[in-house]
């Protein structure tokens, strides 16, 4: 269990512990968002390429 002084104060190390967790979870969030966006954009490009191929036939 966390030491005295409460959960949020992290035994006096709150200004180091919480930014670490915030940064790491920010990296997780960025990865999920950017990976999804990358796939969606690739899908849009593929649809455009297929449409252009259809037009040129």
């Amino acid at each position, binding site marked *: 269990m*966390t030491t005295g002084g409460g959960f949020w104060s992290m035994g006096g190390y709150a200004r*180091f512990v919480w930014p670490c967790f915030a*940064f790491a979870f920010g990296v997780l969030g960025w990865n999920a968002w950017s990976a999804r966006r990358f796939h969606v954009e*690739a899908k849009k490009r593929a649809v455009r390429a297929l449409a252009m191929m259809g037009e040129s036939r």
Partner: protein
Amino acid sequence: MNGSAPGMWTWFYRLASPPSVYRTAGTLTPWLLTGAALAIGIGTLGGLKFAPPDYQQGDAFRIIYVHAPSAWLSLFAYTTMAVAGAIGLIWRIKVGHAVAAASAPIGASFTLSALVTGSLWGRPMWGTYWAWDPRLTSELILLFLYVGVMSLRSAFEDPGRGDRAAALLSIVGVVNVPIVHYSVVWWNSLHQGATVAKIGKPAMPVSMLWPLLCMFVGFMCFYGAVLCMRLRGEVLNRERQAAWVREAVNS
């Protein structure tokens, strides 16, 4: 024996074919994301709430629950990138280069995470955010290698040449992976030694270890999930005009 070898290779090539990889990655993603959310949720709760404080570092030691999995992933993603690049280079399997390209930004972001969380942990423990310590310096070189590989891939107009150049650099740079890992053993270092990877005897009591193992599993599942998502994008970008793509994008 000889008769089965061509069959095995056919199976392997079929498995590594772009449509098969696209389909498999799509099936795996939700399962991996669910596993990641569960393991990271349980690990974070355990690490922040239920693990006892360290007798020397107090509650500051809880940074390990995000720092160590990030650092581990930074090495794992690089090794994956180099192995996939080598597969693409040696056997000319296009998906190998796609896996390498997908792994690079993920690995770079986790290397940055390891450096930032390590720096924030270093301030209260060592009295400084940064020291030119072997572990820290080799991890920084790893970040530069990731940036170099990504820049090199995008520097060529011909994507095939970009893939081959990036694969070569990542294979050369893989020498840095054992240097990062063993730097705390080979040289005098401010950084603490191995905590979990000591064979048979982790330097941690079980009450502190289980949340860390949960975080490792969660980060690995998360890596698998975002790799699959990026890989699907890479495969589509490379196979844009293939016949199977029409069916895939319409589904």
